[in-house]
């Protein structure tokens, strides 16, 4: 597993990395200089990689005593104006929700990676998409949203992690990467981006008040009406994110009867299923949201106009399907195929479902 790391050091432009390593390297090249985490399968390679790479770049790696502590250390680093992140998997992400809510309330940028595993509870360690609601609806307490990016291969987890830091800084809001154990542990070729040299200035950061008035960072607003104003201010920021940051891809959608809608690992399997369907003369296409929040509703509605039926495929009991319904309305038949609890569908399985509907 260390070979990827050695190649990265030699400044090779294309390397073989696991999803964990790619995301970690993408973070470092985006200027992340603080990582705190806690071991949990299937993302253990992430803190291991960071423990070696961070000191090489003059950054900080801390193995925290808990998930709660890890996210609060990230909060501290963000307060200090440093690009910071943590990574975990579902049960750990639940514990981090307190900190994510505070980050959102205090308008602090940070990146959180969730290598989604089967739940609820301790669940299992196999790939799952069961944390879609948690990721896209806020996750913790309070009226807030987190930018959520869903990669479907190792290259994309690298690129999206890099991007997540820029989005988090631009909007002063936490950004999540929602992947799974499949992407976390799979080895693929990755084209590396050059390191980000110029990072945005953060005048709001706490660095000591030399030459300026003291700064404070808070999410507490006790004076009547002030919190309401604060919430509306955050909401208008979310509106800007919705307008500017939607990302998606369409495949084989120009001439299509059945539109598959799927994200992440599952979308990759759906791409294979659609290709198999095409070989059999069934006109299948694929719509893949890359940002799960903001959800690319309008592009999906437009893609769906050409379709006769929609098949939503998820590795859960049906969560993103709610957003599909909100986007396309009731004018078209929407079918669902899901595999919860760590089940991963095969392309043949999905092809069978395409034929059934």
């Amino acid at each position, binding site marked *: 597993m260390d070979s990827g790391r050695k190649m990265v050091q030699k400044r090779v432009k294309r390397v073989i990395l696991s999803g964990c390593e790619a995301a970690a390297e993408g973070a470092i090249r985006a200027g992340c200089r603080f990582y705190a985490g806690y071991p949990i399968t299937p993302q253990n390679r992430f803190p291991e990689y960071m423990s070696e790479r961070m000191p090489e770049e003059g950054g900080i790696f*801390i193995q925290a005593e808990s998930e*709660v502590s*890890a996210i*609060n250390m990230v909060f*501290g680093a963000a307060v200090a104006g440093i690009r910071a992140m943590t990574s975990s998997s579902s049960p750990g992400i639940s514990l981090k929700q307190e900190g994510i809510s505070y980050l959102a309330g205090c308008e602090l940028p940070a990146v959180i990676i969730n290598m989604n595993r089967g739940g609820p509870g301790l669940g299992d360690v196999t790939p799952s998409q069961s944390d879609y609601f948690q990721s896209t609806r806020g996750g913790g307490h309070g009226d807030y949203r987190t930018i959520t990016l869903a990669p479907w291969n190792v290259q994309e987890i690298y690129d999206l992690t890099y991007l997540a830091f820029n989005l988090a800084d631009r909007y002063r809001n936490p950004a999540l990467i929602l992947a799974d154990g499949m992407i976390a542990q799979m080895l693929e070729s990755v084209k590396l981006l050059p390191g980000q040299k110029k990072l945005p200035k953060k005048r709001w950061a*706490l*660095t000591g008040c030399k030459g300026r008035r*003291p700064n404070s960072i*808070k999410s507490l607003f006790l004076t009547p009406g002030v919190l309401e104003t604060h919430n509306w201010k955050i909401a208008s920021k979310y509106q800007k994110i919705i307008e500017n940051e939607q990302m998606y891809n369409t495949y084989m959608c120009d001439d299509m009867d059945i539109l598959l809608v799927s994200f992440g690992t599952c979308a990759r399997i759906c791409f294979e299923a659609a290709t198999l369907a095409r070989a059999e003369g069934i006109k299948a296409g694929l719509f893949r949201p890359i940002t799960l929040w903001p959800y690319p509703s309008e592009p999906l509605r437009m893609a769906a106009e050409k379709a006769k039926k929609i098949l939503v495929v998820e590795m859960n009991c049906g969560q993103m399907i709610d957003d599909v319904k909100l986007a396309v309305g009731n004018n078209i038949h929407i079918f669902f195929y899901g595999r919860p609890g760590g089940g991963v569908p095969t392309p043949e399985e999905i092809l069978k479902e395409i034929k059934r509907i």
Partner: protein
Amino acid sequence: MQKKERYLYRKPESLTDNITIYCPGCGHGIIHRIIAEVIDELGIREKTIGIAPVGCAVLAYDYFNFDVTEAAHGRPPAVATGIKRCLPDRIVFTYQGDGDLAAIGTAEIIHAAARGENITVIFVNNGVYGMTKGQMAPTTLLGQKTTTTTKGRDPHQHGYPIRVCELLATIEGASYIERTKIDSVPDIIKTKRAIKKGFTYQIENKGFSLIEVLSPCPTNWKKSPSESLEWIKTEMASFFPPGVYKDKGAQG
């Protein structure tokens, strides 16, 4: 030549002009002032970053005239770790109550000490949850009446109070641990000396320090301010004896 004015006593630069929300007889005002005086005297106001707790001192950023952040309940040592590791030449301190530090944030304080984080912790022990109107705290004395122990704290039902200094003194990574009280002028002076030592240790990169201050909460103790000071002297100090529990600096 004009003779320069010399102040014998004035408001420290490290305090703002804001009026605090604290009740009459509360200890927070005294402890805030001690911290502000120490920061002024050490000339570190412009490079200090404070971490306010959840509890009565939650609005500390309104009272301190330097950079202060909020933190989730119990998490100031983790937040301080993040700040101090990123900005090692700044002075970082947490200000925490007994519920914050010794109940919901027990893991955070123990592990910040174990890592030997170069931070200063001001631990205000008044034996109750003040802001939520006086429930039992991890430091509530046996027999002490609170809103959740109306017949007095019973060890069989409510367990025993935690002695934080004694606990943290066993941790290798901790450098300086002292407990003081503020029920008399000499004790307030001792407290200031201890807090100054804690900040000085951080400036000298000597590592983790914690100063526990036994502090009055007349409102929730249902006592007058003067009765409260007497209660610290007679009751609290006998279960939580003041003193230096660890001092790596003194050991050489």
